[in-house]
Each structure stands twice: as structure tokens, then as C-alpha cells.
């Protein structure tokens, strides 16, 4: 093979790998967060996951296969990191978590799920629920603060938020057919 062809092939390969990284890195990060990593740990493990995969001469056969493979590598990296730090895996059962992720989150690393959630926030919850969600997730308000603003008991806030999340979950999973 001429060196020019080799250079072109190397460039194509690099472009292909770059496309895989760009397509899946956010999904792997979300998956690791779902498995209980904090953001910094997720950052590190995402990088380690891709480096390991790229090192092994990986082939991008289909988005679904690639996503599943990346999740497996990421999970193993997480277990190794936890063992190295002499920490037991956190309370998340990794197998059960993988099953839920594969079923609900889909191969695009939660992308469709988030889009559906955006729609459901408009239609599936009432304004009071919406406000409670905003206070909790956007403004990081505690239950007492939410209760004060919505003129509820603290226990009532818990119930309201649980109902809101449940309604959203039903709506999202219905939209996605999962």
C-alpha cells in the first residue's frame, strides 16, 4: 500500500473513532452517573473506557452494539476502580441497573428519553408539580423551602414530588414505547 493510501486510511480510521467518541461519550457518562459515580469519577471513567476500547482495535458494527459494548467496559472499569479504592460497589446492583438502562434508556445514551421528558414536563404534570420540580432540581431548594413556597407540609412535598416523577415516568415510557 502506498504511504499516501496508508495516511488516508489512518485518517479515515481516526475520523471514524472520533465520530464514535462524539456519539457515545455523553451516554457513557450518563450511564456511569446512573451507576452511582459522582461527576468527577464519571469524567475519569468515560475517558478510561474509550481509551481501553480504542486500544483494543474496536469495530463500530452498529450503534446498539457499540453502546452495549461501551457500557460493559465502563461497568468493568467502575468495578476495577472501586476494587482499587477498596470500596464495595455502592448500593446499586449493577446487573439490575444495566437491565433497566438497556430497557429504558435505549442505545442513544438517554438522548430520546430526555427529549421525551422535555415534552412530558409540558403535558404530564400540573403547574404546582412543575413548580415543585423546578424548585428541587433547578433551584436546589430543600423540602422545607419548597413546602414554604407551595404552602404545603414537608411530607406533602415528598408526596407531590413522588407523584410528579411517577407521572413523568409513565408519560416518557409511554412515548418511547418502553
Amino acid at each position, binding site marked *: 500500500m502506498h504511504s499516501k493510501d496508508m495516511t488516508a486510511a489512518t485518517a479515515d480510521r481516526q475520523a471514524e473513532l472520533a465520530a464514535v467518541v462524539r456519539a457515545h*461519550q*455523553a451516554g457513557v457518562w450518563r450511564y456511569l452517573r446512573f451507576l452511582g459515580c459522582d*461527576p*468527577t469519577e464519571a469524567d475519569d471513567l468515560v475517558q478510561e473506557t474509550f481509551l481501553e476500547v480504542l486500544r483494543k482495535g474496536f469495530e463500530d458494527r452498529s450503534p446498539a452494539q457499540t453502546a452495549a459494548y461501551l457500557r460493559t467496559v465502563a461497568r468493568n472499569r467502575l468495578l476495577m476502580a472501586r476494587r482499587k479504592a477498596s470500596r464495595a460497589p455502592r448500593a446499586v446492583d449493577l446487573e439490575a*441497573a444495566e437491565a433497566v438502562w438497556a430497557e*429504558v434508556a435505549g442505545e442513544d445514551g438517554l438522548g430520546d428519553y430526555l427529549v421525551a421528558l422535555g415534552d412530558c414536563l409540558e403535558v404530564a404534570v400540573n403547574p404546582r408539580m412543575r413548580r415543585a420540580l423546578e424548585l428541587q*432540581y433547578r433551584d436546589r431548594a430543600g423540602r422545607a423551602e419548597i413546602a414554604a413556597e407551595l404552602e404545603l407540609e414537608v411530607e406533602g412535598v415528598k408526596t407531590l414530588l413522588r407523584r410528579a416523577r411517577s407521572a413523568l*415516568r409513565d408519560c*416518557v415510557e409511554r412515548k418511547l414505547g418502553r
Partner: protein
Amino acid sequence: MSPPNEPKHDELRDRLMDQALGEVLGREAPPDLSDKILAAAQRESFTSRQRKERVMNGSKRRYWVWGLCAVAACLLVGIGFAMMNPDVRQLALGPPEADEPAEAEREFAKTAALPQMAARMGAENAEKTAESEASQKSPAVDPFYLHKSTQLANIRAPSAEPSAPPPPGQVFGRPLSEKPKSVGDSIRAEEYWGTTPEGEGPGKGGDQYGHLPENPFCTVKDHPLSTFSIDVDTASYANVRRFLLSEGRLPPPDAVRIEELVNYFDYGYEGPEDDVPFASHIEITGCPWKPQHRLVRVGLKGREIQGEQRPASNLVFLLDVSGSMRSPDKLPLLKAGMKLLAEQLDEDDRVAIVVYAQAEGLVLPSTPGSEHAEIIAALENLQAGGSTNGGAGIELAYKIAQENFIEGGVNRVLLCTDGDFNVGTTSQGDLVRTVEEKARSGVFLSVLGFGRGNLNDAMMETVSNKGNGNYSYIDGVTEARKVLVEQMGGTLVTIAKDVKIQIEFNPARVAAYRLIGYENRILAAEDFNDDKKDAGEIGAGHTVTALYEVVPVGEPVDAPSVDPLKYQAPVEPSGDPSIRDEMLTLKLRYKEPDADESRLLEFPVVDPGTDFGRASTDLQFAASVASFGMMLRNSQHSGDATYDAVLEIAASATGPDVHGYRAEFLEMVRRAKALASQ
């Protein structure tokens, strides 16, 4: 068996919803790690390739070394033998021939010792036995062999006896505690480990940073005026980010220019309302790392220029395509960045591309900015190779810029390089003189730095300063977008040049002060009114922030004292009651981009006594960035600052943070804290 605290399937779905809500409502979005991953992958493959090459080279080299050693050993042995004592030579060569006298002696001793045996066994057998006995005879009973052994003992030190230590300065060989040197030891450590040490100056390997001694406290009695040139560069911040987030190590202190860290962020200052090119905003509050002190912030905001008002631009991209630019964080990123910029240009603009490596060359003659496809194709075809002749490339780029000069427009050379100007007649002095002269003719120069390994940070900053331009460090596509798309106006369009700040402190209110950062922008007091003295430029929409730590009168001053003057009377504070309450007077000088004469602005300032907790969010954030910079520089003035304090202040002052830059800063502080504790 499942762990007892295993969440159920349903709970996991709730957990997923919780995470999704955090992302949709709470903006806990995943970071874009693509550039980091790809750069790390490339580095890894580069390093492993180098290791392979090194092993190959090492094997070849080893054969040569062994071959040479063998020849040298043969020669030495030959010479040694020629010079040896004859006895030793005999020992080494074995028993002498039978016709030698020693052999005759041995034959005699042998036959004399065994007369009875010879008689009993017969002459033939006795002779055979005698030969055999002679061959097994102990040297200890043989005077001849004893003599040879003694000679041997004199040559080789007896191993059973401890050897005396060699005299000082005559130690040969390698102590056993040391690792053996291998052939690969000649390879630089950074090549092996994939990291780069910081260079120490011209001609040395690694990145090169100018030494920045920290500004000390100055007493107002001795130094009532503080004068400096503004600086809108942000390169140091991007470089520090790369050290912390991509490479996982603390930056060298001289890579941290605090003013560039502070100026990386947009502070929401109001723009000017009249015909002045920029507005100034002063705020005074408590100093978070030294509560007895006050913190003064001088903020400038350049006039915004909307896209359609942007003047026509005549741009020359001067691109370094030397071999050192081959890695993915250099030329590929450079191409991506230039493409982003090219896409913003229109038919009023012009772009030319000049490259330099072994020979400079015009890759794209000056072309209308609307010809995006042609510009992008020219960029796509660039290949890295050869060594750098930056000086010749700069000459050609300026020539093209002059030939296509747009009156009243932006005429700018954009130099994109890792700063490796390593071939040709280029000296920093020559380059500086060239860009200074060209800036006077109306063609400005901005510098975009790329990559790591031989980043000549000090030189790029100097060249851009002298070229009336700015210096940015591009560590990823996101930064390229920030500099070349979001802040394109500021990067390209200069709205005021030679902007200088002078502050006169009131000795009735201030005992001492310290300018935080701007170490290499300090001017002499008399330079303020000297229009021939060059200073920094401010681009459209740019914000500039300078912070002073001020010691109020009555507080102890950490500054070297000067003996009382013998021949002069001390200067007394003004007794004018109308100015008694003023803390300082801010004076600004600037020139319009095409003017030679400066204009003066002056603002007296009174300290309202605001606590730090009541300061504006922007000032709180800027103070946290400055204290972070001081910690990274191991500043002796960092007072009570800790990484936790920086985090606490910055986290409460992120404001809207539309682009996530402040959130990223928090990440950098966390990483620095973790690294510092290791």
C-alpha cells in the same frame, strides 16, 4: 445473592427519572470529553509508537555496541599481552613447551620423587603414572606453581578480603543500588512518560514560560501612583485548564497569569453609552483572603459591535505546518478553528493563507470571505512536515496583508503556532521589531497558540503584545469556538489601542496597595502620558478586569521599609476637605485604533465600605478566580485563601453562566485541590 440494600427495578427507573430531571431542569449535562479522549488516545498511540521505535533503535544500537566492544576488547588483550610480565604471560598461555627449562625441572622432580614405584611397575607403566601424577599435583607442594600463585595473588585482589574503598574521585563502575543504564536512557523522560517538562528558556526542551515575580505591596508614601497596561489575553486560563483537566497535573507557577485567568470570564459590565470606546466600572469591597484589607476592582467594557456593523476584514492566516504541529491538538485543531472563523466571514472580508515550515508559501491568495468552500478546501489540504522558519513566513504574511489593505477596516495577521520558531534567522528581538513596525503601519497581529510540548508561551505573548493583538491558547474546539466565533468581534476588531491605567492612591485613606497580576504589564509612572509607549488593546465587547488589594491606613503593611529621606521634606497628604474621603483616582488613557494621540479619562473613587458578602456576584467570582490563581502560583500574599474557600465563593457566584464556563472553573478548582493534596 443480592445485596440487602439493592434498589428494586422500580426504584432504578425512578432513579433514572431523577437523573433525567437533574439534566433537563438542573442543567447537570454531561461534559463534552471528546477532545480530551481523542487527544489522550493520540498521545497514547504516539507514545507507544515511540516506544516501539525506541526498542527497535535500541536493538540495532545494542548490536553495534557489542560489536565495537568485542573489537576493543581484542585490541586491549593483544596490547596487554605484549606488555605483560613474562611469568604472567606464561600463566595465561598455559605450561611452556617441553624444551623450556621449567619443563626440564619438573621432569626432574617427577622422576626423583618416584624411584620405587618406577622399579616396581616397570619403566613404561611408571612413566605413564608419573605423567598422570604430575598433572594432578597440587600447586601448593610445587615451588613452581606456588610461585605462579603468588604472582596471581598480586594481580587479582583476593576475593575473601574486603576491598578498601577507592579514594575520593576515583570511583569506577556503578553502585549496585543503582539501576543499570540502558541504551534507551538517552531518550528524554518526557518521550517515555508522555509528559513534558517545562522548558527553561530558548533552546531548551519543553514549554517555555517567562518568569513572573509577583507584584509586592507598595506603600503609598513611596509609590503613590500605580501604572500598567491593560491585557485582554486569556491564553493562560486555557493553558491552566489543560494542565488541570486534560493532563491531571498542577501548572508551573509561571504559566499562571492571574489577570488572564480573571479576564477569561465575561462580567456583564454595561457598555459605553457615549462616543467613548469603553465604559469603566469600579467597585470596592472587603478582601476575602485578608479581611482587614480592601479589594478594588477596575472593570472596563469595550463597545459591542453587532455582526452587520463589523468592519470589513482583511485577514491573513499565518499557519505553522512544521513537523512539530503534527499532533491532533495542533494542526487538526488549528484547521477546525480556522474553518469556524472562515464560516463567519462574508463578501466584504478577505482571507489569505500563508504557511511556513521549511519554506514559507502562499497556500491561498487573498480571497473573498464568501468563498467558504475555497477557503475550507485550502485548509483541508494542509499537511504538517519540516522544520519551522517563522521569520520568513511572517514577512510574507505582512506583505500579503499590505497588498490587500482595507482602509478603515480590520487588517490583521492571525499567527497560529505552537511557538516553535526554530529555524532560520528568527530571533525574538527581530520578530518583535518586525511586528511592532508592521503594527504602526496598521496591520495588527494576533496569536493563537496550540498544543503542548514546545509551547513558547512567553514568546507568543510578547509578539502579540507588540503586534497590537491578543494571544489566545486553543486547547479544544470549544475554546476555538469561544475565541473565533463567540468573541470574534473582540478577537478581530480593535476599538481602542494603547490603553493604560494609572491609579493615584490617597495617602489619607490607603497605606499600601498591590496590583494582582499584570506583572509583565507594569509601566513607569511617566509612561502614562507618553504616547510613544505601547500598551494593550481592547477589542469590541471585550471586558477587562484589574484587582488591587489595598491596605487601609492604620493596618500593618507587609512591605519593605525605606529609611527617612535626609534631604527632602516628607510629602503630606492634601488637606483639601473636598477630596479627603476619596480612596483613589482612576485615570485611563487610550487611542482610537487609527489615532496617534491619546485621550484621558479620570474618575475619583470613594470606598463605600461594602462587605464582601454584599459585593456584586461578578466581583465575588472575580475575587475567587484571583485567589485561585494566587494559590496556583504559591503566592506569599494568598492569606486565608484555600481551595475550599475558592469553591465556596465561586459556587455561590456563578450567576446565569450561559456557556458553562464558570461551572468548568469549579471543576478546575476541584481538580487542583485533589492534585495539591496528593
